């Protein structure tokens, strides 16, 4: 018998909880619900869910405060769900340890795709993916080789560093700060423009149409996301 993954839904809106719950059950997940931060933390401890969907607008506690608490008390993968569209808040949540975010109103398919990505990353525990592919581009992290349509793509060390950061967590958003801290570890002040230029050249080398990128996706003001799967499946987006 297949063991179903457990998803904890923390949201004060009963309608939203019910909808998310319905979608998840249909996709064959087990769900636990919590309406407050307090309840959420209790269920997190007691039920040990694989994934937690956390609404930042809870009545009893600020959501951003909860992010580090959730990460401290468990190894649950945390996806932040928020109606607030302030980019700083999303970046803050990600930098505090959230694994991904979703803005309300969201598409249920989008939600399910994110949950799938999160679970996959959870299995491979980040960095453990030996190789992944998107379209005709293959990224081999062990061999440090990138090919497109079978031909080797020559990348500079910095370009490869950026790509490998994204490839460690395929499908998941990585903030500018997180990438730059790895690629330029000695720079105190990070300049997004350097990263932008690197990503542009990466796209020119990897994408079929750099004007409409499908491999490296941009999250406005937040970071980048690699639309790839370790098994060579379709991109998570579109």
């Amino acid at each position, binding site marked *: 018998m297949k063991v179903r993954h457990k998803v904890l839904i923390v949201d004060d809106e009963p309608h939203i909880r019910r909808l998310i719950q319905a979608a998840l059950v249909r996709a064959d997940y087990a769900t636990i619900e919590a309406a407050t931060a307090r309840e959420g933390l209790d269920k997190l401890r007691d039920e040990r869910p694989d994934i937690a969907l956390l609404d930042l607008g809870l009545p009893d506690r600020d959501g951003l405060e909860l992010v580090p608490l959730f990460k401290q008390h468990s190894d649950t993968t945390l996806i932040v769900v928020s*109606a607030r569209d302030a980019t700083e808040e999303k970046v803050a949540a990600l930098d505090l340890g959230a694994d991904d975010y979703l803005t309300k109103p969201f598409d249920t398919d989008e939600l399910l795709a994110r949950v799938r990505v999160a679970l996959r990353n959870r299995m491979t525990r980040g960095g453990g993916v030996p190789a992944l592919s998107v379209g005709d581009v293959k990224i081999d992290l062990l061999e440090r080789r990138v090919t497109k349509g079978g031909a080797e793509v020559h990348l500079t060390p910095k370009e490869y560093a950026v790509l490998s950061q994204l490839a460690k967590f395929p499908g998941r958003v990585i903030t500018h700060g997180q990438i730059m801290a790895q690629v330029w570890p000695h720079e105190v002040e990070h300049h997004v423009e*350097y990263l932008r230029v690197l990503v*542009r050249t990466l796209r020119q080398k990897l994408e079929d149409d750099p004007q*409409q990128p499908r491999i490296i996706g941009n999250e406005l*003001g937040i970071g980048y996301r690699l639309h790839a799967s370790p098994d060579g499946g379709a991109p998570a987006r579109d």
Partner: protein
Amino acid sequence: MTESDRPSPQALLRQAAQEGRGRLKVFLGAAPGVGKTWEMLTEGRERRESGIDVVVGVVETHGRRETEALVHGHEIVPRHEVAHKGHTLAEMDIDALLERRPQLALVDELAHTNAPGSRHPKRYQDVEELLDAGIDVYSTINIQHVESLNDVVASFTRVRVRETVPDSFLEQAEIEVVDIPPDELIERLKDGKVYIPQEATRALNHFFSKTNLTALRELALRRAAQAVDAQMLEHVRANALAGSFAVGERIIVAVSEHAHAAGLVRAGKRLADALRAPWTAVHIETQRDQAFSDADRRQLADTLALASRLGAATSSIPAADVVDGLTRFAGDARATQIVLGKSTRSWWFELRHGSVVDRLVRTLGDVAIHVMPSDPEEGKAAVRRQRVRTPWGAPLDYVLSSLMVAAMTVLGRLLLEVIDLSNISLLYLVPVMFAAATFGLRAGLFAGLASSLAYNFFFLPPTGTLTVSNPENVISILVLLGVAIVTSQFAARVKMQADLAGSSARQNAALASFSRQLTASATHAELTQAICAEVARLLNVRTVLLLPSPAGPVLQAAFPPEDRLEQIEQAAAQWAMDNEQPAGRGSTTLTASDWLFHPLRTTRRVLGVLGLAREDAGDPLRSDQVPLLMSLLDQASIALDRMVLEEENMRAQALGERDRLRSALLSSVSHDLRTPLTTIMSAAQAMKRHPSIELAETIETEAQRLNRFVANLLDMARVEAGALPMKPEATDMFDAVASAVHDTRASLADHAVKVEIPPDIPLVRLDPVLLHHCLINLLDNAGRYADPGTPILIRCRRIPGALLLAVADEGPGIPPGQERRVFETFTRLEGSDRVRHGTGLGLAIVKAFTEAMGLSVEAANREEGQGACFTIRIPESLIMANFESEDVE
């Protein structure tokens, strides 16, 4: 970096102040005719030929043909004519020059005095204004017009020029000496190449002797060398090069009310320049100051003003006597040199009181003391003024003194039976002391004389005559007279001190009541009215108070009430406010105004100007009122500043509260509206799986549209509240366009979206979220208006000075004349039979967001084919330099 290597902050500040300002170059000559103007014009021509925009502000050719030929090549800003006493004088038109804004202006004869009624009395002040406006200026000057050398030149040429330029002004200039040997100059003079011929012979005799010219030439060369030296030093200080310069020298010039003090000040300036030392001109206020005439006060104020023009700090110190005051001040200021004038007092006075110089030398052992002789001519004038100084007092004082003497005589006659004759004389001391104490020194002396005569006449045998038979009695009379003189001097001094104390007490009381009045004012309007009323009362003048506003100074309060100012007054007030210096009658600027305007300022800003005028249109202030006015202005500024700060604080608090409420409201609206929308959208998606439920798709798309409208409404609310958060960062057009296309894919399903971005398009610095909102609104708009199936084109282009991002459709286009209207809130294009969905907010948001980021947007019809094209223009300043990825390795 060690302490001494660090650049001096003052030097750096001066350097910073120079930035953005025009540069001044002065062609310095030893005498007229050396060819300064010619040199200036030649260099001006070279600059013009190298592409600099050069104009002639004013050039005096003195009819010299070569010079005139040189002028002709230049653009000349016409002079404006000033009517003065039936003559018309053509002066440099400063406003026209400022309007014309050349890169370089040629302005001849820096020391020129402007016609009365001009903006500034002196041409160098006009030049200062040009420099402030960022215009470079070339100018000319002869050495005898340099303020600090004025005395020196006059001492050997016997010609004193009245037109001088302060050294502090010349210190900012690059100086070029125009030099020819004296023989050659005399030759040129004889040939009539200097001035107009008939004047030349006269000038030759007075001024152009070879010895004079040689001396003048040496002075000019020395002055230029000194300027180079000073500029080098400034450079050393600003860059903290290891240079050595004298440190620790401090000079004090003691000035009095005498006219020769101006010479002392100039000597002090030369000493300070030679030693590169800071210097202070100080006046020691003693009891004598009480007896100053208006002329004395004006002379003293002029001397201190001269010192301040020459770059000195000035100070006025009250003290019991000059030596005490100077000793104390020299100690406080850690002076190393003192410049004094040779005393004009008589040897008799010095014998009794000791000479100031001797006492200073004794008390200030370690300070060098320079004693300068006084100019005999100016000294005479000073002595003459001193004579008329002590007041005679009212005739009534003498009548009363006489009556008292008479009363004592009667009393003496009555007591003669009882007391000894010699003791009677003591009775007379009573009127003497009373008169001296009450009416002053002269009345006391008068009473003493009257008493001795009365004593002699009525008491000493033989009585009834003024002859004295017994020689002993002569001694009695002399003693009486002597005692009278001494006591009256003492009594008079006590009276003077009491008067002095009284007047300073009155002044303090006035200041205290002023500050009480100001503190009592609760509102800004009350405060300004109180300032006007109190200053008017204390100084017995009319007052107005003007506050700054974008349109210039605005009349805020007046006493007695006044509702408008004449244009000239308005100009003076504006000038005072802009330059933070007094302007108007009694100042050095715009003196034609009846009013005198003083700025009210703190170290941070100018708060306003206070205008003063007298009912009879005379000078608004007596010179002895200046210190009181300064104290009043200080207090008024502090009170005004406090009031402004309080108001700003309150406004900021109110604003903060409003902002807090607004952001709370916005976030709750966005949360409360989006939560149900999320539910509806998710529910509709779930329903789509069951084909039996029709219209689920409609619910979903309509919910999505509603969501977009809510987002737009919130955005618009933010724009209108001025609460757009801005986080500009390096943004890639590829990302921006791709995200926008991705997010609008549902509404643009019927259209092919074509993207044209050159691969080398530079990054731009702007807020990516705001740009995203703009783009999705433009795409949405294109999707709504374009015919189904037609492509939508997004094109990004780099043009000189900007980057253009255009969204073009193949719809009906924009009706002519509507190009601007489309961006107005709730405007939808008419003249089309198609019903369009939309809130009419989208384009208004695009406009508001682009403007908030410093971009602009415009709508037009496509040049090729049909359809509308919306173009966002990103200015050069936001475009980031293109760098290759190798640079970041």
